[in-house]
Every structure is written in structure tokens, then in C-alpha cells.
């Protein structure tokens, strides 16, 4: 482990201090050192968008704070849910009186802490509704979709909900849009090398050299199979073979594609995979309305990629096209 850190127990604290200094034009700290907010939050007359999750997934989660995106974000230890108090504080920072949509990923810790935070918010008269992302198609069979993890599809969920809220929609409409976004989104990951939590000092799972794990989770959760490493083209094909039948996506669909590196895979390789993804979708006459390629949702220095596809309707199309400004996603 040749990491560039100070005290391994305080990497999150140290990172947050640097983050606020670097992006002071866009975001700010709060009374709770584990909560960052959009500099203009709460935005008058707008439903607040809140998320949160463990650290180590840069630019998620704090990278999606910004204009027409998230208003406040709770930050946890590496790969560990933020505390209930942090989620609660984020809800307070985001609420302009129109209520708060808390949009997060399906993990045991996050579920518990958000549930407690919603109770705390209710006591203070803040109305919070939630959507739990479960886009990882490889994490459980379709009939157990409620067990599936939330992964990079969360970025698209935040984009959609952030845009909906910015248009002046009420809380129920924002929640409905976020739920629609995640219901129409599927993701899958492939890992080729594990990652190490600095305070632990060694990887807590292994991927043998020359092998790849299909369906791996954002924290190294085991996937559906371990296979010899294939070419980028074959990987693209294999990931689509998992995703497309799961929703299912059909000929004639319009989609958004998000291809993210897991941290250590060069962006160059991500485009090599994307090339084949686009080719296969084109052949199936599935139209890519918009594509995002880059490190959108990582897992420290894990090597590998995740592929996310979201099916669009008119509403989702309008919302995904709206301008946004955040560290992780900016579009004009």
C-alpha cells in the first residue's frame, strides 16, 4: 500500500477539509463536519435533495452537490454509512420548507441511519421522503430486487431528481421522478483488482492476477462469477448481456449510458469499453441519447468498470438534458 495520506484513521476528515477549500465556489461546510452543502442551500421554494453514503467513492457522493443536483450530503467513514445525525443535519441544511427527498443506495447501514434521521427530521417538522436505489442487476435475482444494491445508477437518479426539483416540482413529484429513474436503470460492475481501506492496510478481498470478477459490488461484494480476464470488447458484450434482458431494454428504446471506472482503470480503457457498448446498442437499435464516460462512482483504487443504462421517456429525457453544475457532473 503506497498511499498518499497522513493518519490512516483520519483520511475522511483530511479529504473533506481539502474538498471544501478546493470547491468553495460551489459548496460549503456546515456545523457538522460530516455534512457538506450547496453554497446556496436551502434554495428558496425548491424541494431539497439529500444523499449520503460511505466515503471512498469519489466523486460520489459529495461531488454531486451543486446547481440542479444535490443540496446537502452526509459523509460516512470509508465504505460505511454516515451517522443518522449526519443525514439529519443534511436534511435540515437542504430544507427550504418544501420538504426533502433523501435519495440513497440500498445498504443495511444506510437504511438504518436514514430511517432514524427521517424520524429526527419529523420531530422538527421537516417532511422527508426517500427513494432507495437498487440498480445493481448482479447483486440479486430480479424477484429479489429489494435486496439489490445501489451503485452508479444513483448518479442518474440524483441528476433526474435535482432537475425535477429545480423546475419547481413538489416533493411527491420529485420522489416519483427519482423512483422512475431508478426503476428504469440497471447497472453491473466488473472488477480486475481489489482495493484497500487505508486504516485496514490490506485488501479485504482478492481478485487473482489475470482474472476478473463479474458482478462485483462497490465494496468488493462478490459477483456472480470469476473468469479469466477478457478483452474490452468481450467485457462490454458480457455486461450488456446481463443488463439488457434484466429490465428488459428493447429495440427502439432511448437510453442514457453511464460508464464509470472503479478508481484505478485508466479513462482511456473506459472509452475502449464504451466504444463496443455503443456499437452493440446501435446494432440492437437502442438509441443512446446521452453518454457519460469517466470516473463517476469509484471504489478507492479498485480496478474495473461499471456500466449503467437508463431507459428514457419524455420526462426523463427533459430532466437528464437540463444543465447542471457540480464537481462530478457539469453540463450546459
Amino acid at each position, binding site marked *: 500500500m503506497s498511499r498518499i495520506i497522513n493518519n490512516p484513521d483520519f483520511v475522511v476528515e483530511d479529504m473533506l477539509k481539502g474538498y471544501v477549500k478546493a470547491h468553495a465556489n460551489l459548496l460549503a461546510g456546515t456545523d457538522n463536519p460530516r455534512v457538506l452543502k450547496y453554497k446556496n442551500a436551502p434554495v428558496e421554494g425548491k424541494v431539497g435533495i439529500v444523499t449520503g453514503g460511505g466515503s471512498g467513492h469519489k466523486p460520489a457522493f459529495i461531488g454531486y452537490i451543486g446547481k440542479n443536483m444535490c443540496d446537502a450530503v452526509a459523509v460516512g*467513514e470509508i465504505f460505511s*454509512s454516515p*451517522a443518522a445525525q449526519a443525514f439529519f443535519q443534511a436534511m435540515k441544511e437542504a430544507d427550504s420548507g418544501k420538504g426533502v427527498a433523501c435519495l440513497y443506495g440500498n445498504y*443495511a*447501514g444506510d437504511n438504518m*441511519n436514514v430511517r432514524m434521521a427521517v424520524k429526527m427530521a419529523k420531530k422538527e417538522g421537516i417532511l422527508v421522503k426517500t427513494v432507495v436505489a437498487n440498480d445493481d442487476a448482479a*447483486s440479486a435475482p430480479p424477484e429479489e430486487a429489494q435486496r439489490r444494491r445501489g451503485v452508479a445508477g444513483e448518479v442518474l437518479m440524483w441528476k433526474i431528481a435535482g432537475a425535477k426539483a429545480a423546475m419547481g416540482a413538489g416533493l411527491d413529484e420529485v420522489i416519483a421522478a427519482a423512483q422512475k429513474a431508478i426503476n428504469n436503470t440497471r447497472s453491473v460492475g466488473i472488477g480486475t483488482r481489489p482495493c484497500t481501506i487505508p486504516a485496514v492496510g*490490506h485488501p479485504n478481498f482478492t481478485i487473482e492476477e489475470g482474472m476478473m470478477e463479474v458482478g462485483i459490488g462497490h465494496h468488493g*461484494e462478490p459477483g456472480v462469477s470469476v473468469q479469466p480476464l477478457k478483452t474490452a470488447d468481450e467485457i462490454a458484450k458480457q455486461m450488456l448481456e446481463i443488463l439488457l434482458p434484466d429490465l428488459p431494454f428493447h429495440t427502439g428504446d432511448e437510453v442514457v449510458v453511464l460508464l464509470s471506472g472503479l478508481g484505478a482503470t485508466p479513462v482511456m480503457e473506459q472509452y475502449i469499453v464504451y466504444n463496443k457498448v455503443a456499437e452493440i446498442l446501435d446494432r440492437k437499435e437502442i438509441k443512446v441519447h446521452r453518454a457519460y464516460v469517466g470516473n463517476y462512482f469509484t471504489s478507492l483504487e479498485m480496478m474495473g468498470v461499471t456500466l449503467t443504462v437508463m431507459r428514457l421517456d419524455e420526462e426523463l429525457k427533459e430532466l437528464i438534458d437540463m444543465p447542471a453544475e457540480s464537481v462530478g457532473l457539469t453540463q450546459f
Partner: protein
Amino acid sequence: MTFKNKDGIAIVESLITTIQANRDYLSEIDGKIGDGDHGINMNKGFTLCGARIKGREYNMSEALQVLSSTLLTDIGGSMGPLYGVFFEAMADASEGKEEIDAAIFGEMLQAALEEVQEIGNAKRGDKTLLDTLIPAVEAYSSALAEGMDFYTALVELKEAARTGWCSTEEMVARIGRASRLGERSRGVLDAGATSCYLMLHAMASAIQQLIR
């Protein structure tokens, strides 16, 4: 057989030193089927609590309240809320009581168990801390019902907690991150069940010292 709430601060101190001493052990167990950070996060929370109660004249209930709010505010993860509500329930059930007897401690345990069950949604056999906690609380209650004294009931509690903890080794995880491993989670102790055993053991032993 009773102890004074104000002397009960020793129980919280014992919890803190126990977690600190087992930081690496808990992370090692967690690393086999989890992230490997259970000991690190627990140690961070309990050490922070230690600093917050140091030099203050807290009784047991107040110190448990500090421990609870530290876990809920600063730790997060799954263990923050689970142990947060656990200690909060114990603090609430003993608040305002000067003398803690066997019955009051039984109420503390029962309240703590109910809170953890409510928030965690796990059942016995899911390979979680409940597999330590449920048999421990049951053994303690039946010991009292059978007329055993406080000290002996705590012996029963420790034994049942240990048996329950060890039973998680052969279980397949059905909730939380390890559940994604399915059969691969068999053959390893559950980290939460382990920290729960260590804490119940530390608490019971500290009380035995106080009431002896």
C-alpha cells in the same frame, strides 16, 4: 445484591477498554466476510466516548447516554445505530435509579434488545449480534425467574452469550453486507456477534465486581 448507579461508571469504562483492546481482533474477524473496519470504527467511537466522560462525574446512566450519542452522532455504519439504540435503551431504563438491582438490569437488557430488534429487522439465526444478544437476555431472565441471585444470573448471561456468539460460526449470513456471500459466509464468526459478546461479557464482569 445491588450496585449504585454512580459506581456503575466502571461498567462503561470497562466497555471502552474492552473495545480498545480488541480493535485488531474485531477488524480481523470482520475482514473475513466484511470490510475489515469493524474494530476500527468501534474503537474510534468508544475512544471518543472515553474522552468525553473523562474527568466528569457521570453515573452509569449518564455515561451510557454519552456512549449512545457518540455512536449515533459520530460513527454511523450499521454498528453506530444498532449499538447507539442499544445503549440509549439501557440508559433510559436505568435513568433516575440510584440503586441498580437484578430486576432493573433485566429491564435494561430487555429494552436494549427490543430497540435493536426494531431498528435492525434481523431475526435469530441471521448471523448477527442478535444471535449473541437474544440467548443472553433469555438466559438472564430465566435465571432470575428461577430465583437465582444477580451474580449467578450474570454467570448464566455470560455463558449463553458465549454459546450464542460461537453459534454464528456455522450460520449463513442472511442480512447485511455478509449476506451477499451466501454459503461463503459459513465457517466464520460474525463480527457484530463478537463485539456484542465482548461487551456483554465486560458489562456482566464489571457488575459482578461491583456487587461482590
